[in-house]
């Protein structure tokens, strides 16, 4: 397809924002976020922790000890960096892969495991943790984010709503409707599209003729930016800026993070070798967010192998504990679920409740 001059001009404006290059060198000094050494180390800690957790989760899934799981390795910078830019009271509307963000936002890890197993405890968000249940329908969280952000603005909370989807999610009608509503009502919403290159098996090039997903913001009349999603500082800086833009009354932001998932789409039988090459995997592994940030920290004498090993051990220990805790959750009963359907049980559910009490007592 030959693109018109006008379109080429628009697309050329969406350049990838980066702070750290693949070697961990600062290439954009002016954009360096104001983070203390401790905070920088915390970012690395969380990425290492998440990588280990992902490996463990995959292994637990293979052992049949976990339910639905969507691997996150490769996307740590995108996930951790964006969440780190939030206030504790901001709302997160996650997609099914966005478990690290909600855990760092306050959802206990054992609860995340319960969600994975299809236990209702996984959806019972603790008081004060402003997180919605991970969304399965692609795009539904995008329109809801417009509503949550409107609610936060109306209540004058000084907080924002952030939501996540993937490159495939950007093909959904709801993606456009959500951004358009948020723009039309000028609400503090941040839409993060983690472009990990594949909607299960379909590459981003087959999702759209658009060169970037970020440029889709133009149609909604909102700010859009493309960020190197393997660069945690870039993701953090842009999310922080987007958050402030919303709070200042300057509308929502679409952030496209260019990232890659190393593993399969989910652990339910997806085989990435069917749709991508090992060359492609190798190429993206060179951009690894952990490697690059480790180099950056080492250059500032803020990181050591010893330190990293401690985190690895801690992660393994925590996961073991969390799984144990998840194992001890009360067995899920159908009567519990019947009880959750409505505030008050209508006649049909009252009868069915009695039937299932009887069945469960046997």
């Amino acid at each position, binding site marked *: 397809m030959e693109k018109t001059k006008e379109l080429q001009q628009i697309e050329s404006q969406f350049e990838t924002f980066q702070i750290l290059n693949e070697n961990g060198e600062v290439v954009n000094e002016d954009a360096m976020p104001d983070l203390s050494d401790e905070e920088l180390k915390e970012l690395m800690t969380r990425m290492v922790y998440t990588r280990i957790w992902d490996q463990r989760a995959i292994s637990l899934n293979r052992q049949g000890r976990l339910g639905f799981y969507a691997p996150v390795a490769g996307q740590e910078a995108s996930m951790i960096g964006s969440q780190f830019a939030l206030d504790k009271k901001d709302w997160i509307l996650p997609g099914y892969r966005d478990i690290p963000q909600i855990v760092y936002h306050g959802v206990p890890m054992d609860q995340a495991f319960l969600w994975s197993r299809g236990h209702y405890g996984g959806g019972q968000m603790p008081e004060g943790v402003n997180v919605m249940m991970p969304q399965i329908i692609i795009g539904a969280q995008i329109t809801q984010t417009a509503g949550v952000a409107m609610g936060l603005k109306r209540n004058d909370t000084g907080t924002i709503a952030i939501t996540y989807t993937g490159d495939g999610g950007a093909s959904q009608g709801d993606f456009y409707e*959500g951004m358009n*509503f948020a723009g039309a009502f000028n609400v503090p919403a941040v839409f993060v599209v983690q472009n990990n290159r594949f909607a299960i098996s379909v590459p981003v090039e087959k999702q759209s003729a658009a060169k970037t997903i970020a440029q889709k913001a133009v149609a909604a009349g909102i700010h859009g930016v493309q960020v190197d999603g393997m660069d945690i500082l870039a993701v953090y800086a842009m999310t922080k800026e987007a958050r402030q833009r919303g709070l200042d009354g300057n509308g929502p932001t679409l952030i496209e993070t260019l990232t890659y998932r190393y593993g399969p789409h989910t652990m339910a039988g997806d085989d990435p070798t069917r749709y991508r090459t090992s060359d492609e995997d190798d190429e993206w592994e060179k951009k690894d967010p952990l490697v690059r940030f480790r180099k950056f920290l080492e250059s500032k004498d803020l990181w050591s192998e010893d330190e990293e090993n401690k985190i690895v051990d801690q992660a393994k220990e925590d996961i073991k504990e969390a799984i144990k805790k998840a194992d001890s959750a009360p067995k899920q009963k159908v009567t519990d679920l019947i009880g959750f*359907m409505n505030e008050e049980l209508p006649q049909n559910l009252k009868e069915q409740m009695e039937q299932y009490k009887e069945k469960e007592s046997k």
Partner: protein
Amino acid sequence: MAQMTMIQAITDAMRNELKNDESVLVFGEDVGQNGGVFRATEGLQKEFGEDRVFDTPLAESGIGGLACGLSVTGFRPVMEVQFFGFIFETFDAVAAQMARMRYRSGGVYNSPVTIRGPFGGGVKTPELHADSLEGLMAQTPGIKVVIPATPYDAKGLLISAIRDNDPVVFLEHMKLYRSFREEVPEEEYTIELGKADVKREGKDITIITYGAMVHSSLKAAEELEKDGIDAEVIDLRTVSPIDVDTIIESVEKTNRAIVVQEAQKQAGIAANVVAEISDRAILSLEAPVLRVTAPDTVFPFGAAEDTWLPSYKDIVEKSKQVIEF
């Protein structure tokens, strides 16, 4: 008391709740300045301001998502689906999101949204405006589906719907909007959701129905009376969940029943009523429970509406079949 049409009663209910509760918001396409295509929200924006009563971009899925998001941040959205045939565009927001909110969160979040939408035949609208989709909604666990037949009921039921902490689909039959007036109290009152109303008492046969068919059934009952048949007419008012107790009590008295709906035969509500009667009162029956419905086609193009829609004559005929069984 004032004489009100059904649409005035609906506006009055929304006015009452906007006044009563700051968290109530009314929005949808053309509901603000224009007061809604049927004028259901007439004057509300002027009275409560653009902050409380507002127009949205033209996108039903967006409206549903907005309502869903607002509802978890403490608001009580009353969203209008301009014509209920457009519910397909926002079915995910209603059926897969709001209806599951409480379940999915193990009771932590609820979604107190009222989804208003005009529907119903006999007014010759274009395609996908009039469709009776209550069966589709009623088969979705987690939402209540309410269909008023009179101005008085409309006000009391809508106030209850807005105050309900679960999502409620509130369907307004277009033909009933301005077809008659009745006494409606200006002060607030509620009618419990899930409770049917015996609109006419009788001892020979029970006609179970809802919406515009309540009026056709009442007319049929008058006709039947000329032949010495005393029909009881039950208006379900809420079609999900249905009020099984009122139905069974009546059937045990009359020993005969028909179920009347404007929707197609395969469209759910009547079939559910028949099944409940069969489950609970089969030994009281002197005859099979028959249904008066539209045929199982897509809602017809305008020129065929009059024959396609069930009429009071169909109800008379079917009642006699049951009586003479």
